[in-house]
């Protein structure tokens, strides 16, 4: 991790000093531990604030849309795939973009760490290889990093950046080891009549803060469907019908585009696992259309193309 941080700073400083870019998008330490935050470094001095750790959970590709400057971005596997997605959708200009690729070892879920130590206040987290040393008032615990990976990082298939202009270290093994087919779409195992109550319960805590939407690099519409008022497709209340409409539509909008970066879940203040929905769509798209989002700049997103022999058993 330390080595990656050094290399990121080095690359950022070089690009800024050369004038190759106006801004470097990366992460810096958050105001509290385990909350690394997106940061735009605009000078060589500011580049010293950039870090890389196990808590870089935001998806920086989110900040590329509608940005006029020459930009460099720190990108791990999922972020690079979202960059590819944005390129496919003509949202960003590759010529003004420099990608500093970071082979990723998976990000750690803050909530899993807190659960593990019994919700005590954490003052500092140090990373020592495969171990996290969590320190607080009167305690110090050594935790195994692998057990605390975010769910999506556990089943990640592309930890190395798929496009980059330079890499900060040697590539790591691409797959994280989790079986994505087994983990995706968990509710498929439920009986049909149990599903609705499970769904209702899973999203009951939603406070409609839209953090999941705002954290998502796919959501760049000028007017989101939740803000449309004539007609109003989705009410603004916490009524369960509105919450359910919002989550179904939000997930559907990610069809064939979601790279399973997990930014939505990491952003949720209520701990809602919205990946239960997106993972189902991701699995369907993979199985029905054989498409993995964000791998090929030249490919057309799967929902904007068709094949004459697409499955249609469900149509009378």
């Amino acid at each position, binding site marked *: 991790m330390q080595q990656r941080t050094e290399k990121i700073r080095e690359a950022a400083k070089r690009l800024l000093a050369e004038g190759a870019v106006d801004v470097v998008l990366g992460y810096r330490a958050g105001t509290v531990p385990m909350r690394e935050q997106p940061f735009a470094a605009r000078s060589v001095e500011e580049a010293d604030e950039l870090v890389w750790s196990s808590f870089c959970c935001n998806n920086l590709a989110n900040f590329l849309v509608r940005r006029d400057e020459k930009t460099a971005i720190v990108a791990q596997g999922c972020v690079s795939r979202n960059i590819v997605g944005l390129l496919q959708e003509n949202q960003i200009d590759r010529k003004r973009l420099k990608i500093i690729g970071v082979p990723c070892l998976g990000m750690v879920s803050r909530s899993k760490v807190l659960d593990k130590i019994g919700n005590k206040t954490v003052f500092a987290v140090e990373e020592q290889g495969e171990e996290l040393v969590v320190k607080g008032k009167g305690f110090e615990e050594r935790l195994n990093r692998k057990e605390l990976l975010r769910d999506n990082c556990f089943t990640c298939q592309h930890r190395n950046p798929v496009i980059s202009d330079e890499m900060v270290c040697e590539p790591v093994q691409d797959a994280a080891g989790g079986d994505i087919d087994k983990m995706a779409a968990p509710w498929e195992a439920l009986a049909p009549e149990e599903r609705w109550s499970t*769904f209702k319960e899973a999203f009951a805590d939603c406070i409609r803060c839209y953090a999941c939407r705002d954290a998502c690099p796919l959501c760049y519409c000028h007017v989101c469907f939740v803000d449309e008022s004539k007609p109003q497709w989705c009410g603004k209340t916490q009524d369960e019908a509105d919450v*359910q*409409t919002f989550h179904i539509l939000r997930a559907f909008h990610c*069809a064939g585009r979601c790279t399973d970066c997990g930014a939505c879940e990491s952003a949720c203040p209520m701990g809602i696992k919205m990946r239960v929905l997106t993972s189902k769509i991701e699995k369907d798209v993979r199985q029905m*259309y054989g498409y993995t989002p964000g791998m090929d700049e030249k490919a057309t997103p799967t929902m904007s193309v*068709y094949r004459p022999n697409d499955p249609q058993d469900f149509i*009378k």
Partner: protein
Amino acid sequence: MSDKEQFEPRIAAFFCNWCTYGGADLAGVSRLQYPPNIRVVRIPCTGRMSPKFILQAFRQGADGIWVSGCHPGDCHYIAGNMYARRRFAVLKNLLEYVGLEPGRIHFSWISSAEATKFQETVIEVTNAVRALGPAKFMLKDIAPQAQREVA
């Protein structure tokens, strides 16, 4: 309505202007009998169908949804129905994944010459939805409490 025997579903039907809507017209002109449970919304093409429409219909009390358009290859806009097919497949799977009964949501390809297929499909769709009873999913209850009690 507690008695399932008497329950008559309301089905929101979205028909493509160029084929199924014409098919429905032909069924009418041909005096073909079919259940009166569908409320038809004419759309320019199934490619115009948005999942918003489907969810909105459920939110406002539809018991079933039926979307029908041109057979693949017959689209007035060349391929609108082909794009729609992918969207419907993903949406239908998602809705069933969260617990919508499979019989509430129907898709079909019916050309403007297929009045009999239209008639058969209305009957099939209506029977399927009637068997499931009133939809309780995602209903947005906007009537004030007092009004509901009177009703």
